[in-house]
């Protein structure tokens, strides 16, 4: 039997620490934005002959100017990132690279102007706000027949806090990966965050449902709130873990053998889901307890 309420300081403390750390990372280092958010060119090449990274960098510097380029290696592929190229420049650079390094296979080429990027950034922010608000409002509505001890809007607001917690931590992780490995965020990242929100609320709902049910049943008795919440959490433990586990299984498979272009996308959702499960069990309920009406017996 896990004493979620009794040990709440520990659980909330750990969460608080992780969220603060993530927020600090985000503020200090910021996100490295992909080309679909700021515009630019992303070019994936696979050369037929061995090419040294430094010489490629040098050649690119010569033809494209020193500013705004980066070359990452991903197995035998080079991912070149430049300022937005028009088609004429694209072909010119292609010929130049062919001259210097021999034939190569162009796996993909994306040139996105800054206008689209601006649009996507705006939409992304709106989408996050709307999903956060939408889900919380729906919870308030779904839990409208709640008892006096915990009013429906409390369920909603705690949900919002939990969801925020669940996306802040993966975001912090991505910033860390950005600093360490040059990982960029793009629209897929935003989608991943939204998906985490949409999924992690599932087990929160399961626990809240049980708490609500118990409160209804124990309406006329002198039940101790802390005990009720603890029982609810423990009774729904198997449920929370298993429903998340099925998703985590699928995500883990995709991370290991799925298409590489989706790697960070799936990773973000995976981390978010694990954090989300933790938060439903160890964070949401203590928060509910902290926010109880003052006149209740402890």
């Amino acid at each position: 039997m896990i004493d979620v309420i009794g040990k709440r300081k520990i659980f909330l403390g750990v969460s608080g620490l992780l969220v603060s750390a993530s927020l600090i990372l985000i503020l200090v280092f910021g996100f490295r934005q992909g080309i679909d958010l700021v515009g630019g060119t992303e070019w994936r090449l696979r050369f037929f002959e061995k090419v040294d990274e430094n010489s490629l960098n040098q050649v690119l510097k010569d033809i494209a100017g020193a500013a705004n380029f980066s070359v990452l290696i991903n197995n035998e592929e080079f991912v070149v990132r430049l300022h937005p190229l028009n088609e004429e420049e694209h072909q010119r650079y292609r010929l130049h690279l062919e001259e210097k390094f021999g034939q190569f296979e162009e796996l993909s080429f994306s040139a996105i102007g800054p206008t689209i990027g601006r649009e996507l950034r705006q939409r992304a922010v709106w989408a996050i706000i709307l999903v956060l608000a939408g889900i919380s409002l729906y919870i308030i509505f779904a839990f409208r027949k709640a008892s006096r001890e915990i009013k429906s809007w409390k369920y909603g607001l705690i949900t919002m806090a939990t969801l925020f917690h669940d996306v802040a931590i993966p975001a912090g992780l991505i910033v860390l990966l950005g600093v360490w490995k040059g990982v960029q965020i793009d629209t897929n990242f935003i989608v991943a965050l939204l998906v985490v929100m949409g999924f992690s609320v599932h087990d929160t709902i399961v626990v809240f449902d049980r708490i609500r049910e118990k409160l209804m049943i124990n309406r006329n008795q002198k039940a101790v709130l802390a005990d009720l919440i603890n029982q609810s959490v423990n009774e729904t433990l198997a449920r929370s873990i298993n429903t998340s586990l099925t998703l985590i299984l699928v995500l883990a498979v995709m991370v290991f053998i799925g298409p590489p272009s989706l790697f960070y996308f799936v990773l973000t959702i995976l981390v978010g889901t694990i954090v989300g499960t933790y938060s439903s069990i160890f964070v949401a309920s203590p928060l509910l307890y902290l926010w109880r009406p003052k006149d209740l017996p402890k």
Partner: protein
Amino acid sequence: MKRNILILTAVVFLSVSAGIFAFEPLWQKISDFRPWRLGLDLSGGTYLVYQIDLSKVEIRDRESAVNGIRDVIERRVNLFGVSEPRVYTETVGGESRLVVELAGIKDVNEAIRMIGETPFLDFREVVEIKDSEKATSTLGFASAGLDGRYLKTARIGFDNITRRPAVLLEFNNQGAEFFSQLTERNIGKPLAIFLDNELISSPVVNEKIAGGQAQITGLNLEEAKLLVQRFNAGALPAPISLINQQTVSAGLGSDSLQKAVWAGVTGTLAIILFMLLYYRIFGIFSALALLMYVALTLAIFKILPITMTLAGIAGFILSIGMAVDANILVFERTKEELKKGLLKAAAIEEGFRRAWSSIRDSNIATLITSFILYYFTSSFVKGFALTLFIGVLISMFSAITITRTLLRTFIKND
């Protein structure tokens, strides 16, 4: 009774498999009736977005201009011999865009080069080119210096006398001046009208036209309408500029597809294994329901049809991970009810009843998320939102009806 049903199921399964195996052409025909539509990131191809600059176009002519541009570009695109090119317009935040999707094109930059030109309309005179050496002369076209810039509008009209359809052109002042001189010079001779360097019409000039208004006759209604659209596309110059280009090679596309499918299959098997290990008998039912869910959902994707992109497949795989959640909630609740002493059949009913509110609320949260995702993102990611949305809806249906029916059929109070 149970044994009989099990035997029956096995027999049916065997027969169907045998049938598919034996009548392969039939299976192929059924499958090809509605082939899979793959997005560019899976089939390989190019995705181009052009911004249409309508700043110099009057509001009432805008729709016509945009459609005209769309038609001209589609014509150009069709010349590449790409199978099923798609050219369509989009309106984003008040601005008009043209999107061109070319699957499996070989020479992308040639395509871009040809598309990139604003439809160009110009008038040319028929002249004699004298070859002094050979002392012959041939007919050629010389640019008359009058082009789309000077055309104010083009409209459909009907000839006063003959009631036949005609294209009515109206030039601006400068254009009228040019046109007047042009017609004066060429009375009795044809005046050639070129769109994108292609001759589309060469009416004979009957008289000098000073009013800046001209009429092209001799066309049927369809041709006249087409000409008007093209004139307006060329006449109201709306330059287009490339703002987004994405190319994926066919190799990368098929590699991604393969990996995604394998991940999906492996993931599904992993889930089934887990359910069997943890829930045993109940696990078998949820495994069956899951397989049916996968088949049903894929069929719906294929029939609608939904263009499957990589993101779309990811969305579907995620929905598989979630589809089994409803079963888990029901099973856990049923276990609780059994502990309380209810009989098997009653426990199952109670399990479904009590778990329903959690299932419904969780899935609605996901539906809200996919709904917002659909409207706030573009193209490739839309596919993800769509497959997730449809997947969740069908999984709700499958969990409640399929699993419940299976359980009701096979579990008796014992």
